[in-house]
């Protein structure tokens, strides 16, 4: 990531007679790892308050992740996919949207849902296996986290088609990882979006590993961004540890989508500092050296340096936000724990709009 692109890093294709060839792509960066602006043209227009808000959300998310891992160990959360390291892609991409834009997440993408409006206790309920976790409040434009890798890519495509058919200036964004980019649904979704010219952003958080399988074994393509070329949509590669690069790329892609310019695939190079899930042991497939190397690119450190230089952030601010986040997590996990348990009867009644007779009968066995 040493070479810095000053132009929009759109993947390009070049034909040499009958042979199709693609050119290499360099990831978009706005901030260097030292927090210096290296690409002022791509600097998103953000007020000081907005910049501070972004940092607030990243620190909050990191603290929430730390606490969630502990809550998982204590058995107070169920399935949980850690997010540390990916705060720039998660917080930044959501921040670049409007509340009317629609998010179709993968299972790790809880921060985007919460920052888009899902109450935190519902995120905890989802993890605890409670149906209310997926009962998205009215006006919060998200779907529930998706478990089938790739299925959400098609939902976002359909939702984007809905916006287009209704003439609404909104965009759908969907998230997957480097592993998800190998799914058939990934290609089908992008191809449909290209064919119908839909306002959708396919955001791939390439964190280098699909659970344990390294990116090198995932594809022989030069990059995931290049895969946009086959679908005839825009493809970008960005530095996913740089929150300003993320915001710049997503704002641009969303704007293009809303204005009828079609879909964009964004590949963000990032890293999850923690294992895939609480049941995973990353030391079995990653080296300490590699983890160390990526920790130097910590998105919070990089953006923090930038803000400190501008006099917008101090260590005290970080400490304050951490405290706030801890309190919020405590409050919301309690609320989740105090939420009335689901019942089998309630489950049965959620299968159809009107519960059919055979299910009514089965319900009687559980009352």
């Amino acid at each position, binding site marked *: 990531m040493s070479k810095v692109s000053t132009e929009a890093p759109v993947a390009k294709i070049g034909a040499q007679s009958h042979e199709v060839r693609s050119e290499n792509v360099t990831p978009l960066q706005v901030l260097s790892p030292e927090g210096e602006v290296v690409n002022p043209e791509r600097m998103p227009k953000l007020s000081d308050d907005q910049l501070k808000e972004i940092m607030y959300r990243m620190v909050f998310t990191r603290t929430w992740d730390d606490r969630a891992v502990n809550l998982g160990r204590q058995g107070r959360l169920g399935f949980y996919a850690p997010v540390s390291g990916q705060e720039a892609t998660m917080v930044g991409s959501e921040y670049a949207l409007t509340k009317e834009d629609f998010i179709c997440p993968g299972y790790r993408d809880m921060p985007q849902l919460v920052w888009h409006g899902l109450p935190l206790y519902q995120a905890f309920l989802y993890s605890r296996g409670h149906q209310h976790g997926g009962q998205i409040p009215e006006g919060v434009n998200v779907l529930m986290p998706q478990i*089938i890798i790739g*299925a959400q890519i*098609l939902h976002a495509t359909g939702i984007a088609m809905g916006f287009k058919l209704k003439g609404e200036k909104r965009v759908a964004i969907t998230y997957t990882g480097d592993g998800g980019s190998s799914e058939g649904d990934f290609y089908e979704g992008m*191809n*449909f979006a290209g064919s119908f010219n839909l306002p959708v952003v396919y955001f791939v958080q390439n964190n280098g590993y699909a659970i344990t399988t390294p990116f090198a074994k995932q594809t022989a393509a030069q990059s995931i961004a290049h895969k946009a070329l086959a679908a005839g949509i825009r493809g970008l590669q960005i530095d996913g540890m740089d929150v300003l690069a993320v915001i710049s790329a997503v704002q641009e892609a969303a704007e293009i989508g809303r204005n009828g310019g079609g879909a964009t695939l964004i590949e963000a190079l990032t890293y999850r500092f923690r294992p895939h899930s609480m049941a995973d042991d990353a030391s079995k497939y990653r080296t300490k050296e590699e983890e160390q190397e990526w920790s130097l690119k910590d998105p919070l450190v990089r953006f923090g340096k930038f803000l400190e230089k501008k006099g917008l952030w101090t260590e005290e601010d970080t400490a304050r936000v951490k405290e706030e986040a801890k309190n919020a997590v405590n409050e919301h996990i309690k609320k989740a724990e105090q939420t009335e348990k689901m019942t089998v009867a309630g489950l049965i009644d959620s299968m159809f709009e009107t519960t059919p*007779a055979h299910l009514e009968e089965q319900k009687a066995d559980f009352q």
Partner: protein
Amino acid sequence: MAQMNMKEAIRDAMRVELKRDPNVILFGEDVGKVGGVFRATEGLQGEFGETRVFDTPLAESAIGGLAVGLGTQGFRPIAEIQFVGFIYEALDQMFVQAARMRFRSGGRYHAPIVFRTPFGGGVKAAELHTDSLEGLAIQTPGIKVVIPSNPYDAKGLMISAIRDNDPVFFMEHLNLYHAFRDEVPEGEYTVPIGKAKVVREGKDITILTYGLMVHTSLKAAEELEKNGISAEVIDLRTLLPLDIDTIVASIQKTNRAIVVQEAQKTSGAAAEIIAQINEKAILHLEAPVLRCAGPDTVYPFAQIEDAWLPSIARIVKTANQVLQF
């Protein structure tokens, strides 16, 4: 009243609903300009425009996923899967994503989708065009399964399916598309999902069936009549929810039953129907309920499909086994 075959009746149902509700949209492979490989949607794009009726790229999973996404935004998609065997490519979107949407979101979202597909044997079609995959669907919680046997029911059931707020797997038997014409009312009317119909009254044995096999069973009933056996034939019309009340009422009268299906014998609709009969009507039975079905092989190549499918003779034989128990 107009004379329509089943294909025309299904088309008319879609036309009525496209006209009535601007949120109804129809898409799939080749459904637009030419109106589908069977012309079931012929003329609809011309009448309603390319934003309401359109061709998609060739990818069944994406057709299903598009429908699920659109369904969350207030649309009522009719998604055509060109042939039944192609649903395997779309199973996640049909049987997981659409079928679980209401449950996963605690009712916040739902999937008001009709997945249409032609199926059924006897037309010498290519491999994977004719399989009877309704058994997979009835084991899937959250999706309804409708299989009409005639033009009148097909139109009324299709209108019900389009108006239903849950996903419906609507299976259209290839051999019934052009088989015969019926009086079909113009405009809108519904046939309720989940209600079977007694299509022939009898007192000695009940034949439970659906789709093309309704007609084969009616012919078998005529054969049985020649030997003094009075067979009642029930067209199930919907496999999920199953109208067990109509089935039980019939068995209380006849005390004997068989189930006829084109699908392979093991598991599937017939096995489920028999299980429910055991739960609800065992004391009314004079004999076990037997199945007349395809053998547990893959659906055969065209050359032997007539021998493979349940025939009038095999239905009569199965009925006699029950009658002589």
